């Protein structure tokens, strides 16, 4: 059955479906059962499944991550939720030294079917400590799957796939995606899905993560009016990474922009660029362009935030470089329109 719903509803729907289907699934974390329900993404769970399967915790991310691993080792399927990805750093020992490695170190004897969901904050002065994504960092540790759902369908299917996966999975959800509406087919249940072409084109490939997919779609709309056709690919799962859809696309376009929702230095964009440089060496007509955060901590004031974050404008300018186009007049276009919709305080 297909229904229209928001991203936040799709997350709550997916969790409820899995909790219904499997009594070992439980959802926990700071603020998970309060009246705000992690921006609505855990709505209805405590009512339906009770406080033994949906509960809050003390402020103890390090210990709670370990608790989740211990429960997963013991045959449960915990979903540990964080209202900001930045707080995962407090559980980093458990994530990087334990969660990632237990199966390997046990020679395959152990499994850690644990899902960590975390929200990427943005806007209204979230600043340096409430805005990180770190998907490249998590993906760096072998043994962790890392996904960034962009559409409501992805939010639904990827959360269900993550819960069913016998490996640890970190899902990073951009705060601004929560309001996006889309149709969700509840029967669509692939394993954690790889890159998908979300818009077909012939001129330039834009490989994106998370919110950058939205920006790239905006850029594609603008450029279409100037006769340029972008092929937009949403990577969705950054680890393990299947780059073949991007390679196939670049084989067609010969030009590639990687628009990553992170810093560039040693990040996911560098990884993908390295793989494309290898696999597309003969077909690239121009050097690969990378777009990401400015190389500073995230500032709080809006004018600097706007400069810090990569946007459709930067994608358009990169396309002009790749195609040797004159600079397009963007003065009549409205960008950041989405940001105007997001009001604080959190």
């Amino acid at each position, binding site marked *: 059955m297909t229904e229209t719903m928001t991203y936040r509803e799709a997350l709550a729907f997916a969790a409820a479906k899995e909790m219904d289907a499997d009594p070992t699934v439980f959802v926990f974390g700071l603020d998970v059962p309060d009246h705000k329900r992690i921006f609505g993404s855990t709505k209805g769970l405590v009512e339906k499944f009770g406080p033994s399967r949906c509960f809050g915790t003390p402020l103890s991310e390090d210990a709670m991550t370990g608790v989740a691993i211990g429960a997963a080792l013991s045959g449960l399927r915990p979903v540990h939720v964080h209202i900001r990805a930045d707080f995962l750093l*407090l559980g980093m020992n458990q994530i990087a030294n334990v969660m990632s490695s237990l199966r390997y170190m046990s020679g395959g004897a152990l499994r850690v079917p644990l899902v960590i969901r975390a929200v990427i904050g943005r806007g*209204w002065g979230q*600043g*340096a400590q*409430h805005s990180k994504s770190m998907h490249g960092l998590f993906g760096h540790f072998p043994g962790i799957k890392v996904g960034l759902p962009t559409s409501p369908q992805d939010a639904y299917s990827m959360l269900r796939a993550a819960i069913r996966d016998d490996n640890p999975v970190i899902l990073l959800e951009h705060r601004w995606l929560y309001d996006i509406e889309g149709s969700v087919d509840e029967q669509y249940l692939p394993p954690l899905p790889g890159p998908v072409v979300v818009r077909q084109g012939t001129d330039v490939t834009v490989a994106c993560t998370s919110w950058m997919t939205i920006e790239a779609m905006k850029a594609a709309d603008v450029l279409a009016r100037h006769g340029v056709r972008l092929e937009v690919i949403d990577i969705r799962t950054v680890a393990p990474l299947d780059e073949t859809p991007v390679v196939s696309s670049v084989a067609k376009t010969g030009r590639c922009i990687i628009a990553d929702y992170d810093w560039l230095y040693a990040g996911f964009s560098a990884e993908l660029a390295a793989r494309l440089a290898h696999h597309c060496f003969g077909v690239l007509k121009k050097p690969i362009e990378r777009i990401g955060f400015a190389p500073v901590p995230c500032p*709080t004031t*809006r004018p*600097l935030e706007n400069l810090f974050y990569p946007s459709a404008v930067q994608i358009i300018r990169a396309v002009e470089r790749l195609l040797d186009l004159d600079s397009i007049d963007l003065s009549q276009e409205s960008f950041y329109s989405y940001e105007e919709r997001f009001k604080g305080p959190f």
Partner: protein
Amino acid sequence: MNKGEGLRLYRTLTLIRRAEEAIRLHYGEDDMKTPVHLSIGQEAIPVGVCHVLPEGSPMFGTYRNHALYLALTEDTDRFFAELHGKEAGMGRGKAGSMHLCEPSRGLLATSAVVGTTIPLAVGAALAQAYRHLRQPVAVFFGDGAAEEGVFWESLNFACQRSLNLLFVCEDNGLAIHAPAADRRGFSSITQAVGGFRCCTATADGSDLSAIIEATRALYRDMEADKQPGLLHVSYFRFLEHVGIGEDFFTGYRQAPSDQERRERDPLIRFSSHLLSLGYHPAELRAIDVEVDDQICRSIGRARSADYPTAEALYEDLWV
């Protein structure tokens, strides 16, 4: 407390309260794009502690830092400029509400990640010991922060090293919306800390005089025993966790009665105290007017100030 002291304390309390009320009044205009954790109900704690500790003592706090910042600086210009994201702000628009600091007044750091500045304070106290100095260091944190491992690790190290450090637990019984009972496996933080080599004291966080007295006594114990101290102060958070509104209607906690409102309001408590000591209402009103005027001018300046230029994005990263 002599007369001048009483009026100064009243002024600081009032400055903080009126600044917060001004934020509530203007926040909806969307010029202060920063998540605000307002201090209404909490004001007396930093005012009292900072009053007792020697001027310039290194201090650390949390995202709920407006009261601490203003208690130490009384500078509403840089405060409001920062909330407005302007170049003239204390962090040039890179801090926002959650990371205010003013090293020149001793406020070294605050953080949006719970518990984060507790070990920094331990480090600052270690630096004092390292240099054979005895300036005390204070760190303010919420009751939720005491659940983090880093609190206990920091406490242990500070006690083992006999550091001159005052832990101030600002207990509003809430972590966002979660009540203490849903989070704590202990009933009293001072008892839980009791097994450490640490002096402890408690005070009513709504009563400025009580906080000052308790801090003085605790600080004397710390000096005498050469041990760190933990001051536990309970207070009532009048507003929602983040933002400008009341949130009693959401049902996770009860609205206070009118009497409770008065009892948990540090400003009402302190002004009644002063009046009972014979201060004249007109003296207090004159301070109110002067403080309102200061805040009004600061907001005006903040509004007309410039945003940082594009170059500022890359400045301040390296020394």
